[in-house]
């Protein structure tokens, strides 16, 4: 009570201080909005409760730059100029920090050790998941003795339920980090001959479900659970060991779904584990998804929380928007931002269905991409389109595309490398930029121009952000190592 009184007094003091200054800009909307922001920060109360539930939402490849593009695209889709838009996790309800994403042996990280660091509290080596620093990538012989304890296992020991949701394959790096320990992230349905220290990643998921470490698993990747030569829901199996993991899971009592209809028919009362695999490989990009084929990430989030909330001891839930990353790899910003918006909607869903008093909600990315932004574009320039000039008067851009030294227009966003390069293999890697129209640039299939020709655009080591609300979210501050995210979760569920 005393503390509340002090904070309120401070807020009042801040508001009146500006008025007392009698500044000429005090009547500006920008000024009053700035004051309101300060008031909101002053009104924050540190949440020192115990986190019954922890939800970790990761948009794969959604670094600060990519998130900026999604913010503008989302705003522009809603009729704003875009720059002023506030994504659901960018409000003053959330504490935030910058995150350093490098791996033990990689300046440019990959999604396996980054997700692993969030699930174990230690940085890991490139391309492997949840093994200690002495493990070697692709070396099964270094698995034994290097297995790390997972947050999901710790949550299970506390009597909590555990869920994992992704629009990528459930055996892909980020979701796998919730339950798997592997010397190679690509061992999704098999391990090398003679490797007995670990199972393939799909096998580890089914084992975790049987052990009660994973209760709710929803995403893509059906092919890795079916034997080669068999087919289910239009997907051919890839398992060379002949094991049908779907039969194994359902034999252990799990419910199973493969499309929106069977997903909607799942019993979410918490009495039986849930396994849903919607696609042979990754689920569809949001831009290509049909509601009657696959649920949205927000729908999967809603079902996960409904299911996991049945446990009075709480839950740990990791949710991945997996395909922001893939669209960036394609150099196709149009799909990246649409999956970014779908992720933001999942965050809003998770926030709406939970209580800040007992749920730590963390929103972050695992790494950034080689994305960059040109200038000097006017306000409201379509973030996926051509860079339009700044208007001398008014606010909105001039609607005249700026041109570069070659006399040609250019897009706001570009990639440092990737398939969008205009350099040609059959022309000694030379090339010329085309006369690009706005219609071409904003086409859903357009690839932003890239400098260095590569078949797939790369990650970058640039920072990502982390946003959080709920118990002990105030521990996120400044610039942190990625593995610190685990330590906040770990502290929040068992504060001293």
């Amino acid at each position, binding site marked *: 009570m005393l503390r509340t009184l002090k904070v309120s007094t401070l807020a009042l003091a801040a508001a009146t201080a500006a008025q007392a200054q009698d500044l000429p800009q005090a009547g500006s909307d920008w000024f009053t909005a700035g004051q309101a922001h300060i008031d909101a920060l002053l009104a924050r109360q540190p949440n020192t409760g115990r986190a019954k539930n922890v939800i970790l939402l990761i948009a794969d490849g959604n670094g600060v730059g990519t998130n900026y593009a999604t913010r503008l695209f989302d705003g522009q889709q809603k009729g704003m100029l875009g720059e002023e838009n506030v994504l659901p996790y960018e409000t003053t309800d959330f504490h935030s920090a910058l995150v350093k994403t490098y791996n033990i042996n990689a300046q440019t990280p*990959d*999604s396996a050790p980054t997700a692993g660091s969030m699930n174990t509290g230690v940085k890991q080596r490139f391309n492997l998941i949840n093994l200690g620093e002495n493990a070697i990538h692709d070396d099964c012989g270094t698995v034994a003795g290097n297995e790390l304890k997972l947050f999901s296992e710790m949550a299970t020991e506390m009597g909590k339920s555990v869920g994992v949701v992704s629009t990528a394959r459930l055996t892909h*790096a980020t979701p796998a980090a919730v339950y798997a320990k592997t010397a190679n992230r*690509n061992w*999704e349905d098999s391990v090398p001959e003679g490797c007995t220290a670990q199972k393939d990643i799909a096998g580890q998921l089914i084992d975790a479900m049987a052990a009660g470490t994973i209760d709710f698993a929803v995403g893509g990747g059906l092919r890795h659970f079916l034997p080669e030569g068999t087919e289910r829901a239009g997907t051919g199996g890839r398992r060379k060991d002949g094991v049908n993991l779907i039969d194994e899971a359902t034999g252990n009592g799990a419910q199973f779904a493969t499309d929106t209809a069977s997903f909607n028919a799942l019993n979410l009362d918490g009495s039986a584990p849930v396994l849903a695999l919607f696609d042979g*490989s*990754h689920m*569809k990009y949001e831009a*290509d*998804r*049909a509601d*009657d*084929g696959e649920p949205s990430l927000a729908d999967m989030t809603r079902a996960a929380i409904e299911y996991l909330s049945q446990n009075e001891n709480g839950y740990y839930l990791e949710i991945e928007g997996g395909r922001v*990353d*893939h669209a960036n*790899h*394609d*150099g*196709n910003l149009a799909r990246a931002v649409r999956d970014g918006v779908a992720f933001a909607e999942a965050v809003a869903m998770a926030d709406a269905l939970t209580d800040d008093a007992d749920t730590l909600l963390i929103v972050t990315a695992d790494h950034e991409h080689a994305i960059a932004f040109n200038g000097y574009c006017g306000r409201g320039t379509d973030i996926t389109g051509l860079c339009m000039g700044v208007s001398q008067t008014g606010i909105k851009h001039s609607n005249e595309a700026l041109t570069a030294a070659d006399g040609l227009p250019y897009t706001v966003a570009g990639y440092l490398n*990737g*398939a*969008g*390069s*205009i350099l*040609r*293999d*059959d*022309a000694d890697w030379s090339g010329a930029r085309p006369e690009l129209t706005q219609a071409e640039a904003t086409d*859903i*299939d357009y*690839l932003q121009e890239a400098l260095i*020709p590569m*078949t*797939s*655009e790369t*990650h970058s080591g640039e920072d990502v952000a982390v946003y959080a609300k709920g118990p002990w979210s105030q521990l996120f501050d400044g610039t942190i190592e990625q593995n610190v995210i685990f330590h906040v979760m770990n502290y929040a569920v068992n504060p001293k």
Partner: protein
Amino acid sequence: MFRRRFLALSAGVLAAPARAADPARKIRTLYEKGGGFSDDARSLEGSRLTLQGFMAPPLKADARFFVLTSRPLAVCPFCETAAEWPDDIIAIYTKRVIDVVPFNVRIEARGVLDLTGFKDPETGFYSKMRLVDATYDE
């Protein structure tokens, strides 16, 4: 002049297709969300049409077909363990042995739309939609 373009023009084997009145279509107009054939695709079956896209790296040397993709086929080592075909692709069966175009160069292919499933006997590649008797150019 680009080497491939020079070869194509000099040899004349893959000369630019005669331009019809119909504009080049995008592959996505032939598919519905979820992967089924669109109404457009069904109404165009058996017709000669032009499609925009990119040539995926051919599956074998001296091939008579290639896969046309909506976007350059990015092969991402961190997404996939092997090349993955997107949903919105179409096989292009050409009149002549294909002259490879770099994967990041936009092309137009013209041929007769065939919606019957077909497994290529040499490569085993299964296509549910094809352009046959096709030519292509940049």
